[in-house]
């Protein structure tokens, strides 16, 4: 568990501390790919401020620039216009945030354990602490006992969980997840959603999570942002007033508020895509 438990950002706080660890600020950001006549505007202009501890879910039609937005926050791209700030500074890969990509992107020449250990080494964890931290990370994603497996021998869901464990190793105060569960079956997906919800809540991290599913968005998010179709801009910015503490997942999913919010998001996504 993170030594620096960040308290959940109180939605009521008037002033958002934009230099707090894990906070994200996107200021008038536009991003274009290519140059000259081949230019293509992928996102923007977008203004977003994500206080530390928030679980922000990005939803929008395919190609509206969700991944691009995450890549900007991770520091893999620099905005064509505007500025991105993570924890008050310009983001750089490996410093700004832990990233879970759409595909697991595990290193096939390493075992499950080797993948985690590499992340621990890059995070600057001393070697003596690896076994303990590794066990902790694997337990957190429910993968005890798979340490010695080759990463191509385990199932797709297990691979994605290794990727999540790996992204958690550095204990970045910010976690970026790009449709991490898109390719999974419903059962595994729900389990992992609960995992992610629990992990971020317990460690108080900020999360930006991309999905196509309104259901997933409402279940995970403390706030949902719906993007318009390409180039993506903010179409709807919706706080989710559902309880964030330990709640029964089944009960939450079955509640009337949940159904209403899901319908609202679903409707907004369709409207934004049609506009």
């Amino acid at each position, binding site marked *: 568990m993170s030594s620096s438990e960040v308290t959940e950002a109180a939605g009521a706080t008037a002033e958002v501390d934009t230099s707090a660890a894990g906070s994200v600020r996107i200021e008038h950001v536009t991003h274009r790919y290519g140059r000259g006549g081949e230019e293509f505007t992928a996102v923007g202009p977008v203004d977003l401020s994500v206080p530390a501890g928030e679980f922000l879910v990005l939803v929008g039609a395919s190609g509206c620039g969700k991944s691009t937005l995450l890549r900007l926050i*991770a520091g*893999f791209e620099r905005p064509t216009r505007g500025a991105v700030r993570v924890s008050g500074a310009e983001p750089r*890969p*490996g*410093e700004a*945030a*832990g*990233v879970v*990509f759409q*595909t697991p*992107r*595990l*290193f*096939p*020449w390493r075992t499950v354990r080797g993948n985690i250990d*590499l*992340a621990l080494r*890059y*995070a*600057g964890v001393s070697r003596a602490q690896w076994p303990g931290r590794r066990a902790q990370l694997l337990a957190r994603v429910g993968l005890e006992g798979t340490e010695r497996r*080759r990463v*191509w021998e385990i199932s797709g869901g297990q691979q994605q969980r290794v990727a999540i464990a*790996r*992204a958690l*190793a*550095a204990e970045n105060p910010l976690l970026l997840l790009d449709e991490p569960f898109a390719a999974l079956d419903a059962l595994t997906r729900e389990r992992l959603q609960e995992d992610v919800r629990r992990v971020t809540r317990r460690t108080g991290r900020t999360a930006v999570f991309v999905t196509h599913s309104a259901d997933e968005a409402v279940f995970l998010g403390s706030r949902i942002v719906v993007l318009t179709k390409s180039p993506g801009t903010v179409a709807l910015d919706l706080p989710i007033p559902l309880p964030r503490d330990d709640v029964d997942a089944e009960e939450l999913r079955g509640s009337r508020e949940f159904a209403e919010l899901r319908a609202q998001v679903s409707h907004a996504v369709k409207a934004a895509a049609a506009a």
Partner: protein
Amino acid sequence: MSTTPSLAKPAAPADAPPPGRRPPRHRVRTRVRHVALPLGSLLLFLVLWQALAASHTWSETLVPPPAKVWDAFVDVSTTHDGVRGYNGTTLIEHLGISLRRIAFGAGLGIAAGVVFGLLMGTVGWLRSLFEPWITFLRTLPPLAYFSLLIIWLGIDEEPKVTLLAVAAFPPVAVSTTTAVAAVPKSLVEAARALGASRWDTVRDVVVPSALPETLTGIRLAVGVAYSSLVAAELVNGLPGIGGMVKDAANYNNTPVVLVGIIAIGVSGLVIDGLLLRLERVAVPWRGRT
């Protein structure tokens, strides 16, 4: 055990034995196929050879009978009438000396190839700079530059080892360059997202992801070095298996020439087999990136 191939899983018949153990009849049949077939063809070859030699179509100098070659093999392998092997060195020693040259030469060439490959694969302009030269070098038959090496380096070990190094270098450089340039960008990004430095990325992503291709290049390189062996030992090659072949050829000693050729071929087969096994053990992730 090594001859048991990994056959595509046979459709299990209804009364199949528990999985893990192959039906005995099937196992016997594959064993037969993989041992008896090569042995049978070898035997047939020997018979045809014997028949050809016995027919005296060509003189014995041109086509010596198998028994003569066998005698030559025994001669060069042992001390007989006070003469040790061929020219004072036994066959196995000739082979050992040549293998050492190959190890040194190909080793140097392979090391240089890996370094150049890494550099050329990562730095675009280095690739543009060196690639034409390497392609040029690759198309040259080793004999073409051997004379030059003799002029420059004399007739001792240096030109031989250099020739083998120059022959082994291009395949490794080319395969490593291609593999490094084709490193999955997604994995490099994943490493960087975890906080890897530039050097970390090279060591932990670029090198392992290029390794399968590089190993294939190394296998090719050893093959090229092997086939350049006789050329490398053309001048002052004794002791050395290639030198032995060359020397025996000067005296029309066809049996010893054949013994040398067979020794080179068989040792080449063994080494290739070992490299192939190394490849399988060292890069089990081949094809899984």
